[in-house]
């Protein structure tokens, strides 16, 4: 094989005072898949973007070497970079809903790349767009090419985005979290698609926080933390015998152990009977019945659009079912007066995926909590003490009281959201994707917190998530939703080890798995162990 497609040495990127990337060196060779793994803020995306000269506005990029196709890219002007982008290096971003122009048909996005780099004669652009869409597994490509992103499902959008990135047959495709926003089954399809491109000889630089995804297709893995590469080596070795404690921690977090406290399961606190909720012709809930017992965690899994969130809203009494009813501690929402409803609302609280969106950005933590505390009728002077108590309960310092949500980390925000939910001393908390927006290490902490609170306060959780691993970790029982119906419900280990329906089996098979971990020397990191892949040339 010839020399590397891209090669960087001593790459550093700084934004004003913050150094996002520090002294990073690596190379990507033709036909190989290199993965950069790390949590948010580790500098992995900035590193990737530096390779196409788009590190971002105000970025100061320094490098001892930055070569694309053997040419020194440090001296590239705008015109030379544009010739590389899309033509030699394709780039795929995380969420195709926002990464494709929402106002233009997807076919035109693909055509744009083809026209720009004059890949095919003008007259053949249309035919080539259809061919590309077909290649990436989009059914009815002629129709889809004329549709806009909002008319396509998440999986189809991501396929179209990949088609636009590989339209000019670049030698290297950089994929920045290409499957993060997708359901597991769709994620598996996209990974297969990328693997197929790799077999065709395209090199891949995969950016991901998910070790399971990486394990599926990467040849080599670089682990980044705080802007540095802390470990690198063949994927097999790094994933099975991590040397750096950080890698070991990521590995640990990706392979969750159960966080189910030993609690007494009591009588049902939520009882749903024959729930039906239709939106036009689509049934988001279709004859759904279940019960949630005191102290129990009931997991709800399913792909997007399966009715998970609708179910949560029905339980919260925010939606009125077309048929059936939800009983809270034996009393149906339907029969309550507005006054009674308010009282019962205190007993059933909710924690959402994105706490930033559920906080008033102008409120500080104190006001957020005191507003919720006020509902329970506590006199004003006692509210501050209660707010401090709540913060302690969720493991936060009272010093955060005067912070606004924007100045909290993702984990802190979610803890405040939990504290707010606890303010009214609820019996039931509906957790709607409570950790999906968090880094894996933070995810583990928040899950531990939820487990502890459950044991201490005897809470019941309705735990909604598309992340099957997390659901398995925290739930006692699990309900599998598909098209608004519960297709399977039962003890969590039973469902995960011996699923009774094909749908559950397919869902479980799609979870990216890590290779078995081998003994390894956790916690010891020696720089000499940073083995570079031997099969470069």
């Amino acid at each position, binding site marked *: 094989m010839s020399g590397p497609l891209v090669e960087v040495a001593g790459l550093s990127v700084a934004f004003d005072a913050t150094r996002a990337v520090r002294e990073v060196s690596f190379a990507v060779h033709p036909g190989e898949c290199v993965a950069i793994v790390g949590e948010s803020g580790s500098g992995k995306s900035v590193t990737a973007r530096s390779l196409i000269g*788009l590190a971002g506005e105000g970025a100061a990029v320094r490098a001892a070497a930055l070569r694309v196709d053997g040419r020194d890219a440090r001296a590239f002007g705008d015109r030379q970079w544009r*010739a590389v982008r899309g033509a030699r290096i394709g780039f795929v971003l995380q969420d195709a809903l926002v990464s494709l122009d929402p106002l233009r048909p997807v076919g035109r996005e693909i055509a744009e790349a083809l026209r720009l780099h004059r890949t095919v004669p003008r007259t053949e652009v249309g035919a080539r767009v259809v061919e590309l869409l077909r290649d990436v597994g989009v059914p009815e490509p002629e129709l889809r090419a004329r549709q*806009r992103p909002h008319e396509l499902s998440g999986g189809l959008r991501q396929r179209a985005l990949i088609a636009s990135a590989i339209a000019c047959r670049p030698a290297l495709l950089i994929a920045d979290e290409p499957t993060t926003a997708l359901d597991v089954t769709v994620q598996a399809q996209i990974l297969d698609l990328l693997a197929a491109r790799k077999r065709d000889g395209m090199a891949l630089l995969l950016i991901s926080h998910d070790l399971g995804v990486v394990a599926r297709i990467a040849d080599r893995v670089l682990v980044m933390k705080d802007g540095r590469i802390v470990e690198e080596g063949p994927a097999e070795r790094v994933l099975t015998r991590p040397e750096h404690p950080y890698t070991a921690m990521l590995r640990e977090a990706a392979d969750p152990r159960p966080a189910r406290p030993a609690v007494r399961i009591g009588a049902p606190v939520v009882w749903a009977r024959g729930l039906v909720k239709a939106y036009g012709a689509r049934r988001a809930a279709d004859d759904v019945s279940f019960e949630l017992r005191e102290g129990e965690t009931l997991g709800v899994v399913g792909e997007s659009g399966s009715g998970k969130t609708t179910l949560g809203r029905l339980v919260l009494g925010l939606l009125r079912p077309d048929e059936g009813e939800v009983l809270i501690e034996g009393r149906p929402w339907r029969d309550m007066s507005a006054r009674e409803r308010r009282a019962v609302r205190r007993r059933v609280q909710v924690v959402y995926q994105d706490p930033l969106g559920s906080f008033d950005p102008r409120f500080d933590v104190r006001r957020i909590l005191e507003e919720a505390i006020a509902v329970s009728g506590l006199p004003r002077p006692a509210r501050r003490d209660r707010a401090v108590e709540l913060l302690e309960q969720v493991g936060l310092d009272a010093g955060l009281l005067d912070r606004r949500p924007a100045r909290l980390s993702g984990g802190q925000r979610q803890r405040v959201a939990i504290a707010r939910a606890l303010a009214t001393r609820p019996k039931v908390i509906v957790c709607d994707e409570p950790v999906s927006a968090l880094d894996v290490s933070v995810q583990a902490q928040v899950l531990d917190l939820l487990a502890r609170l459950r044991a201490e306060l005897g809470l019941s959780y309705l735990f909604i998530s598309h992340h099957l691993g997390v659901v398995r970790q925290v739930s006692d029982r699990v309900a599998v939703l598909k098209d608004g119906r519960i297709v399977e419900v039962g003890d969590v280990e039973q469902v995960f080890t011996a699923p009774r329906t094909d749908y559950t089996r397919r869902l479980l098979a799609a979870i990216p798995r890590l290779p078995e971990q081998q003994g390894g020397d956790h916690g010891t990191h020696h720089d000499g162990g940073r083995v570079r892949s031997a099969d470069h040339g």
Partner: protein
Amino acid sequence: MKTLWRHWTSPRFRVPRAVLVRLGTSLLVLWGAVTVAFAALHLTPGSVEQALVGPNTITPQARAELVTEYGLDEPLPVQYGRLVGRMARGDLGESYQLHQPVAEALGSQLGPSLQLAGAAMALAVAASLTLALLTAGRGRLVRGLSSGIELVGVSIPTFWTAIVLLTVLSFQRGWFPAAGADGVTALVLPAVAVAVPLTALLTQLLRDSLELALDEPFVLTARARGLSDLAVRLRHALRHALLPALTLAGWMFGALVGALVVVEEIFARPGLGRLVLTAVEGKDLPVVMGAVLVTAALYVAVNIVLDLLYLVVDPRLRGAR
């Protein structure tokens, strides 16, 4: 009745239903405009008959005849009813002062006004698009400078701009005619005077929304595809920035009408603005009512066109109800 309602709400009638609702609300707007103008004219001091008579002395008998002729002795609700009835039939009546049919008077003045409004609008749109595309997302100096200029542009009253332009470019330099509506040169100064605040406002809005759009991930994707900065702005970001600008355009039309009154007076241009001004001063009820009706109709028409433009710019709205 029930079947009728079912047809009305069925999806097959989505388009005709939308058209009917739109027509209904448009008529409502016109009726509202006429009513408000009628009330305003009768609430301001001075009687219509006095305005009719003017400074001339007149015998009580002649005065009584005048009052009966114009129906001014009837109670206000009756006068109002007659007015709405006439307007509904499309009869705008006859001017008290000009002694010619209102429709004729309006017709002759509408042309020059539309010319001026169109020219000012085109100027404002072209200038603000250029400015916004050039300055969006640039360095702090460029942005600071341009937003400073825009602030000044929004703040300057139109009459002041008009007088300064007139003094410098017309009286001192003699480049443009000072009055009248003959030819393109006579259009330049009034159009600029009207366009200045509109341009400033529109530039601010366009730049803000362009900058929002330029921060979107799809712009990064487009750049990663190899698109140049200008192409990214023109092909991707601009369309997103146009949506809020369209919303503003509806309001701008209203501001335009107000500016016309002032500018037409200063440049002694014939037009709707001047016609209305004299009519209000002279309590020329039919002319005021006619002008109000025409302006309101134009306003409704402009907003219907804007609503259609929304669908062209953002096809996602087509599916929505």
